[in-house]
């Protein structure tokens, strides 16, 4: 692993809202190409950590840096996918990717990505005609439009049914491996973390309580092995 030259470096990061501490002295590194799953109970601070990395908020103390650049404002080298799709309902699926920028290159790129998420035939449709899973696939394609180094996923699969969710997991894993992305996934589903991530962070009581490599080989089709890892993570979360 490239621990000596990490993509992201968090140093003594704290975040307070008034008197309330949300994150307390978090320090870690994330290597380029990692798939990190951040798990923990609700209100534990994992979403806040993701927002700090995205540059949507700044830490009260400490600093977040990406490739030696300290993140003080919007991290333009990252893209975030939210729990809800946040598609613009008045734009076609393709325009949601290009934001109405109709240069031939951006249209071609959008078409490629729609093909990648298997939605080519919906390019001209409006979001209202799509199912929940299809909308999240559009959101994923949109996140990839600017070739980001870092993909931040804020529980994007939380609202999907079990089958759709499983297919989405495989799609994200595929893209992660083919595009050489770095992914940070916030989830409260320990099985999802065990299935997808090669590195697991447990955030508990506003601290980074536990981090561990998940050495299972991809594709992780052995459900017993995955369940065992998930069990490990779960015991750390509730310990």
């Amino acid at each position, binding site marked *: 692993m490239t621990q000596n030259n990490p993509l992201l470096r968090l140093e003594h990061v704290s975040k307070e809202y008034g008197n309330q501490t949300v994150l307390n002295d978090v320090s870690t590194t994330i290597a380029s190409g990692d798939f990190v799953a951040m798990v923990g109970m609700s209100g534990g601070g994992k979403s806040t950590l993701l927002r700090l990395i995205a540059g*949507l908020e700044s830490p009260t103390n400490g600093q977040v840096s990406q490739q030696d650049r300290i993140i003080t404002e*919007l991290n333009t080298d990252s893209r975030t996918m*939210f729990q809800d799709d*946040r598609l*613009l*309902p008045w*734009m076609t699926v393709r325009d949601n990717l290009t934001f109405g920028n109709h240069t031939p290159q951006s249209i071609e790129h959008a078409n490629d990505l729609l093909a990648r998420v298997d939605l080519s035939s919906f390019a001209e449709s*409006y979001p209202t005609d799509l199912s929940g899973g299809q909308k999240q696939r559009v959101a994923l394609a949109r996140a990839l439009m600017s070739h980001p180094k870092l993909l931040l996923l804020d529980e994007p699969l939380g609202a999907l049914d079990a089958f759709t969710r499983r297919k989405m997991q495989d799609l994200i894993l595929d893209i992660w491996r083919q595009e050489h992305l770095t992914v940070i996934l916030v989830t409260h589903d320990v099985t999802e973390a065990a299935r997808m991530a090669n590195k697991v962070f447990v955030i508990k009581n506003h601290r980074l309580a536990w981090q561990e490599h998940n050495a299972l080989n991809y594709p992780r089709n052995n459900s017993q092995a995955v369940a065992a890892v998930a069990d490990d993570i779960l015991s750390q979360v509730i310990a």
Partner: protein
Amino acid sequence: MQLSTTQLKHQTALPSRRRHHISRQLIPWLVPLMLLIVWQITAQAGVLSASVLPAPTTVLQDGIALTQSGELPRNLAVSLFRATTGFAIGAIVGFVLALLTGLSTTWRLALDSSVQMVRNIPHLSLIPLVIIWFGIGEPAKITLVAIGVFFPVYINTFHGLASVDPELLEMGHVYGLTRWQQFRQIIFPSALPTILVGIRYALGVMWTTLIVAETVSTSSGIGYMSTNAQDFLDMKTILLCIIIYALLGKLSDTMVKALERQLLSWQKGNVA
């Protein structure tokens, strides 16, 4: 007032099945048609004297006579000019002001509470002031219509801009949209349905204000025709004017609805 009827749904559910399609287009005309028939029958049977309620055919003959004499087309044209100019001025000022207050906190603090305060004044009570400031010519009438149109456009535009989903705005920020792109791609389209509701409402206000404006020193316009007819109990012309107003109101409303269908085709049910 219905200024806050932003929940008004825009043209929902056009059924795809064809046999429903035709009946859907016909049913709204059924009640007016029935009224017309009942009206004609009662008038012909002499239940009501012609001075109280002349028959629709009498009204139609009056309309034809007034058209041939050139009086009706001329008054119609003048009314349409006043309505359109007043509407354009009121709607543009209302829209621009709402853009300022809706998008800038400084402007909002400076202006919005004043506008909200003034909006509850019935604008027709301003007639004496308008006469003193703008005289009795066309500017006064156009100003009255503009004032009437201003408030629904301002209030709905402001409300539309202010109630944009903050999550979409955050998404736009995260995806690196410029301020102009944020406005063009997110804020404006999101406010558009509410703005169009304001415009539809403003068109109604436009006609009602115009009737009253046309009672202030004038010798032309549909409002003039009808008050003049009222003074001399000319029932058929009064009814003719009422019907013309109804038709003009329906026409302008239908035009905005067509515009809505064009601009809001992304809404479910609007997609052809």
